[in-house]
């Protein structure tokens, strides 16, 4: 009888009745073979590994992390509420100490969903990690959290949500944005003016395999984590770095993912992308689960693996080695902010494209340069479909003054010409739309 060294809760929710469209990669079939593999391997017969069903997230859970325009219901299907509820369940298991670790193997994924949501970007509507982290901070106080995003795509949504948050460290390892969607995630993106060095981006060259990937984790991620000393480590465990993934160009393996997990020791792992649903997901999910539980994973291997064929070239290793030398400096010695200041606010003017839903959003983001807290966040947002909308977010570390200003702006939002307005005050726990 096999026994887990760390008790593990797996929330397996394949959403067998939901798809973006019949031939879309994010479809019903996606976790089918993972379920087959889990069942055939008898993973839930291992002493200490248990399966749990997801909760259903509530609107306020979503509103803690997002501005949804015109409403939460308009951008979330039932499957999004359940997927978000699945990661909340994972957090609950760990926070209530029912399990030492948890793995939310749920879909749809979420790490491209930014603070403001008008629809789907990169198959994501709701940032399920952010929803979970904010649920944790609502119920257990302001913990220091590290999110390590190992999806092959840059976790631009998570980066956006935590851009101004000094208590959430966001590290994304991904295929170089010059070669892959969403085209962002460069070392220069290192956090907002109040959270400098709290965002670390590691762009990796195409065809990086186990050696290069694990070296990067060891030399960049681990020292930063050791220094940051988070209360919780979250792994956005996207599985599309796999050598067989159809929409990316990396050469990572199931063994690599398992070793990464063993090194990182995340408290909670959350499945993100990964669309080699027959050749990669069953093996990678198995490897990660066993590694999380501290069960021997050395015999987990893809049937068609040819190590020599996917090994990285020396030039790739050399390039990564140079990155490993330079990147930690972004965290340890952040450069001064180049943010634009206008009347006591830091301002970003942006246009955001929602590729899955073909929406273009125009956005002005203002962060109050508050002397007492990370500052009130004010977002003005507009699309061809949704007229001018206002989002007000008082951070969990927020002060009374910011809270008060948010309230005043919220009350006057109609007069100020906004069609929709949402307030998310983490201090007063007020999550509402203007009527």
């Amino acid at each position, binding site marked *: 009888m*096999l026994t887990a060294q760390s008790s593990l809760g797996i929330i397996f*929710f394949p959403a*067998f009745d939901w798809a973006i469209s019949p031939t879309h990669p994010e479809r019903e079939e996606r976790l089918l073979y993972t379920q087959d*593999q889990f*069942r*055939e391997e008898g993973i839930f017969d291992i002493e200490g590994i248990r399966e749990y069903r997801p909760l259903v997230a509530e609107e306020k859970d979503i509103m803690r992390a997002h501005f949804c325009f015109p409403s939460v219901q308009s951008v979330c299907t039932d499957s999004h509420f359940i997927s978000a509820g699945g990661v909340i369940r994972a957090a609950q298991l760990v926070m209530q100490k029912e399990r030492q670790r948890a793995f939310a193997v749920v879909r749809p994924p979420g790490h491209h969903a930014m603070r403001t949501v008008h629809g789907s970007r990169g198959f994501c509507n709701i940032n399920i990690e952010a929803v979970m982290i904010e649920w944790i901070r609502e119920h257990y106080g302001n913990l220091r959290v590290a999110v390590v995003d190992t999806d092959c795509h840059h976790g631009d949504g998570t980066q956006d949500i935590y851009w101004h948050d000094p208590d959430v460290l966001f590290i994304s390892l991904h295929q170089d944005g010059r070669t892959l969607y969403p085209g962002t995630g460069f070392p220069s993106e290192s956090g907002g003016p109040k959270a400098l060095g709290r965002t670390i981006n590691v762009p990796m060259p195409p065809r990086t395999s186990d050696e290069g990937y694990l070296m990067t984790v060891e030399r960049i991620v681990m020292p930063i984590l050791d220094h940051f000393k988070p209360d919780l480590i979250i792994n956005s465990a996207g599985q599309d770095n796999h050598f067989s993934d159809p929409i990316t160009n990396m050469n990572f393996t199931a063994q690599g993912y398992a070793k990464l997990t063993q090194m990182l020791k995340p408290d909670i792992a959350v499945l993100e992308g990964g669309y080699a649903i027959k050749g990669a997901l069953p093996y990678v999910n198995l490897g990660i689960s066993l590694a999380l539980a501290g069960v021997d994973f050395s015999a*987990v291997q*893809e049937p*068609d693996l040819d190590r020599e064929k996917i090994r990285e070239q020396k030039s790739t290793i050399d390039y990564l080695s140079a990155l490993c030398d330079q990147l930690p400096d972004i965290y340890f010695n952040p450069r001064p902010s180049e943010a634009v200041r206008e009347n006591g606010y830091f301002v970003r003017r942006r246009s955001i494209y929602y590729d899955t839903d073909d929406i273009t959003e125009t956005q002005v983001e203002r962060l109050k340069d508050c002397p007492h807290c990370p500052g009130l966040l004010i977002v003005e947002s507009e699309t061809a479909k949704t007229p001018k909308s206002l989002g007000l977010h008082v951070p969990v570390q927020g002060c009374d003054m910011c809270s008060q200003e948010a309230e005043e702006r919220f009350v006057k939002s109609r007069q100020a010409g906004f069609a929709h307005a949402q307030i998310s005050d983490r201090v007063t726990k007020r999550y509402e739309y203007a009527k």
Partner: protein
Amino acid sequence: MLIGIDVGGTHTDGVCIRDGRVEAMAKVPTDHDNLLATITEALRAILKDCKSAEIRTINLSTTLSTNAIVTGHTEKVGMFVIPGPGIDANAYALGNQYHILSGCVDHRGAISAKVRVDQIRPMAARCREEGIRVYGVVGKFCTRNPEQETAIAEALAPQSDFVTQGHRVSESLNFGRRISTVYYNSAVWRTFNAFADALEQSLKDLNIQADINIVKADGGTMPLKLAREIPVQSIFSGPAASVMGILSTSPVTEDALILDIGGTTTDMAVLLDGVPLLERDGISIGEHPTLVRALKVESIGIGGDSFISSRDGQLRVGPDRHGPCMAAGGPAPALMDAMNVLGHAAFGDRERSAKGIKEVAMIQGLSARECAEQAVSLAMDILKKRVSAFLTAINARPVYTIQEILEDRVVRPASILVIGGPAVAMVPLLEETFGLPVVAPRHAEVANAIGACLTRPTQSLVLTVDTSRGSFTVPGLGIHKTVKRTYTLEEAVHDATTLLRAELDRQGIPAEDGDIQVIQADAFNMVEGHYTIGRNIRVRCQMRPGVITTLAS
């Protein structure tokens, strides 16, 4: 005329039922060293009241295989497994001739590494030297493609009396469980077949020409001929017989809780819309989980003989039993004695009950009545807590579709059905404790035998189709063929139910239209690049567990 026999731990019960009426009953002590003699004795007792020529069917629930396993009287098995990559197959090793072969079948049923039949030669030689005559062959994902298993089984045939192949014991996925299921199947094969031979001879001697069925743990029966191939399916069928006994004496169509209150323990089970709930994967044999389908039954350490004591100044009830209750001549006060003192029951020697309870009461500084009251209420509390935890666990079981999550079908018993010795006396107490109507069916004393008698055969079938590969697989029936790319889910549902019906016909099992139940019917588009290359279709259907008829009221 139907006969049902339930071989229990203490007694073996038999009933004869004709047209929904009990015509004869028998109760004889079980001789575990000679089950056949016990069964024959029960049959003889029944035959006093009914004619052997009129017996059409005999359903038997026996502890034979279970005992063989529990007492370690099993045969040595040579195991050959084909794991491929994954969890280390050594974790599932059983017996000292456990051999891991190369070769690999992936989750689609594609062979990604060929098993080398010549590889087994030295291993097979070692098994021969040890005198091993029964074998088990198990491949990972063999239910998707049994080719490699069959090749190894054929290679072992010359030196074996019997080989169990993984894909024949269950259609479900779970490699580790399949290994233990196959192992135990081969380990009890000879014992079971020797018993079956003797049983058939004995029936001939009694002039009985009837179909013989064996009760399974899932609350169904299987023909003896099939049981000879898969004897492991007959393990732990006792609790199933009692659940089916309740179903056949008091028909239920709603959610209900079943409590079988015995001397030492109370077994609980649940009916969902009147249909008993099954374990998701299968029952465990000791530390080894298997794929043997079983009703979901859990035991609570509370029964009529639960020992009442005062330890560390605290009154306790159960979970241990120190022989029968004092009213029945036992050495120590038990729950039934407390019931006697309170007037809930009038069982055996009530004066002995009073004496026993008084002794405990003195230590506690209570009157006998107070002490009995506290003991009974303690027992009810334990029952209530355990039932509630049982239901919570059932209601928390994982589901995999949005619809299921949103519907959230919660099991909420509307009534409680009780059987077992102390059950009748406890009815008012249980009603008060649970706030639900409690029913004790008639013939509770031989409910297990009635259950065995009236229980229907069950059979399930899984059909998987991959239209991109054109593969059509029904592992349970050994069907592996090709289909055209346009094959649909509707065709699959039709084929699966037709195949199951044909198989039931072949086994001479009558099935009406409503008896065959489709429990899963899914079709997943399989996409490669941006094109749909086919559909992955999975259909699972079963003969609904149930009873042939209910007793006439």
